[in-house]
């Protein structure tokens, strides 16, 4: 799409400052749009009674796609949490693979339909298997990073968590360990102001979890998570620090949670109409779209085309996943332990 670029004369745009060519920015944009389309579709499926449970990342896409952009998939590690659909797609999970988990199909590469959807994991992409208990993953990430360091491997580990999750002991223990050993770890806090219904001010006494970084002896930054390029810049610094032995970084990206916590929640019970309206204006995709249009990197027509492509991809994923076979009850007892002799 680079033929459509029309950079305004005389000014250096943010993506240029970052040395990004138009394709790179558009690729990220596309990832966000695809994630959003998939995410929206799963809510439709939920309302139709075809997906018993969904939990989504709408509003978090810019932070996730920027974080993914600094990783080398299959080399660096991602230890995500349930909102990270855009992150996982950007790291190589396909739309169909995701839909297989939404429908809990046998082929679902994450868990064979054993886990709830959005409990990500994909071995080939080094997306580590995750669970529901909040914050346990952060400690695994520290362990992976420790192994990388001890084994002398050039690997960086990204882990993500909500701001609520930073209240857990595991988060603290992992941050401290990572700081003591100056591990190649980045902890991205996706701060959407709520932990289900619990607002930020009841969760912590500071504005940003990143304020805790110095208390561990590590670098910390708070960034506007609705601004893809701003997050990208911060993540680049973090990943360079990690690669060069400078130790871990704690990044807090301020994002918006567009949907209720999950399909079992209704956020209108605890957020006012007014608050919801203001919040919904913080759309990272709209924002990037505006930027791209303004920068002349995108036209309305190209955008329509892109949306259609994404929708088609989603349609296909849904259809194919829907048709895939359900798990066999006879497999219930498989993989509790390694198979004998395996």
């Amino acid at each position, binding site marked *: 799409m680079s033929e459509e670029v029309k950079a305004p004369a005389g000014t250096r745009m943010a993506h240029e400052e970052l040395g990004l060519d138009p394709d790179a920015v558009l690729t990220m944009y596309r990832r966000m749009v695809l994630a959003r389309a998939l995410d929206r579709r799963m809510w439709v499926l939920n309302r139709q009674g075809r997906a*018993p*449970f969904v939990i989504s990342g709408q509003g978090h896409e810019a932070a996730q796609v920027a974080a993914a952009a600094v990783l080398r998939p299959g080399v660096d590690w991602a230890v995500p949490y349930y909102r990270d659909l855009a992150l996982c797609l950007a790291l190589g999970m396909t739309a169909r693979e995701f839909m297989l988990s939404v429908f*809990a*199909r046998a082929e679902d590469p994450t*868990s064979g*339909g*054993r*886990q*709830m959807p959005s*409990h990500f994991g994909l071995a080939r992409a080094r997306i580590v298997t995750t*669970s*529901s*208990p*909040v914050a346990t993953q952060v400690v695994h990430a520290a362990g992976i990073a420790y192994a990388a360091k001890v084994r002398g491997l050039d690997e960086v580990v990204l882990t993500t968590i909500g701001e*609520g*999750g930073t*209240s*857990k*002991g*595991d988060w603290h223990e992992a941050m401290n360990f990572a700081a003591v050993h100056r591990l190649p770890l980045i902890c991205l806090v996706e701060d959407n102001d709520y*932990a*289900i*219904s*619990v607002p930020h001010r*009841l*969760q*912590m006494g500071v504005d940003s979890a990143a304020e805790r970084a110095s208390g561990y002896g590590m670098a910390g930054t708070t960034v506007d998570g609705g601004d893809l390029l701003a997050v990208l810049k911060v993540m680049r610094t973090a990943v360079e620090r990690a690669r060069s032995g400078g130790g871990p970084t704690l990044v807090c990206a301020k994002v918006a949670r567009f949907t209720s916590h999950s399909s*079992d*929640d209704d956020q209108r*019970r*605890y957020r006012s109409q007014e608050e919801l309206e203001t919040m919904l204006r913080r759309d990272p995709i709209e924002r990037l779209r505006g930027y791209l249009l303004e920068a002349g990197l995108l036209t309305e027509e190209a955008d329509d085309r892109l949306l259609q492509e994404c929708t088609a991809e989603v349609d296909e994923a849904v259809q194919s996943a829907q048709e895939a076979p*359900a*798990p*066999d*009850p006879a*497999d*219930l*007892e498989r993989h*509790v332990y390694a198979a004998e002799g395996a």
Partner: protein
Amino acid sequence: MAVKTLIEGVREALDEEMARDERVWVLGEDVGRKGGVFLATEGLQEKYGPSRVLDTPLAESCIVGVAIGSALNGMIPVAEIQFADFIHPAFDQIVSEAARIRYRSNGSFSCPIVVRAPFGGGVHGGLYHSQSVEAFYAHVPGLKVVIPSTPADAKGLLKAAIRDPDPVMFFEHKKTYRLVRGEVPEDGDHLVPLGRAAIRRQGTSLTCIAWGLMTHHCLEAADQVAAEGIEAEVIDLRSLRPLDRDAILDSVRKTARALIVYEDNLTGGFGAEVAALIASDGFEYLDAPILRVAGPDVPAMPFNKPQEDAFMPGPDKIAAAMRKLAAY
């Protein structure tokens, strides 16, 4: 008496006890404005204010530890753990602290707390929203462990737990919350004593021992086999600790056959203790092996329906075991 759901029984107990005694307070994730993810605490924050119905940070060890501290300073906390699956981070606070405060201080401190948690599966909760955790705590001296299976018991047992001078783990089966309805006494002093089982069905052919949702599955199974002339006595333990040994042994003395049913993983589940008790103290009454029907030994209940169903000890599996036992 009005017919209510089990979760209404829970809510009424909390409401009445908070109204009766201003030391009683509730804490947990989302218990305030939202009223809890299952709405067990709905309306309480409006009524009693945010200090007595506190939305805590996301930290289970903190929830239980703060509950303990508040009890040391004169309050009576009812801590909600959002799902029993997420109680594990609080294991140390429960087992090392709450359970031992009285014993280790030789009686000079005590810890009157209640920890409530929804447990159990069959609600497409997947590996981490379906677990049974009662065996871990029923093993711990110093704790009491209670599981209601009817709305009236939910209310009466919870009220008794709140008034109990020792720490009580109160587990509510998620699937019973709205499925199970029944009459609930309006009486503000409707208390069901901890440590007493209830005989839910009289019978002479065999004794079937269960708790929580499984009580209902056993009753269904008993109905199935009754047509074949097998009369199962169904005992709902209600308290696992203290355990109503007499109720169990009296029944087995009568029936000479025992079946224990639980949803938790078979190996090392609390049903093992019930079996061991019968095998030592009730051995002379027995005419047949002690059978158990329980969840299989897999880490937990899968999310997908076919495997979730395969995991669940349902009425059919239980009825089959009843037939086998009766025919022995």
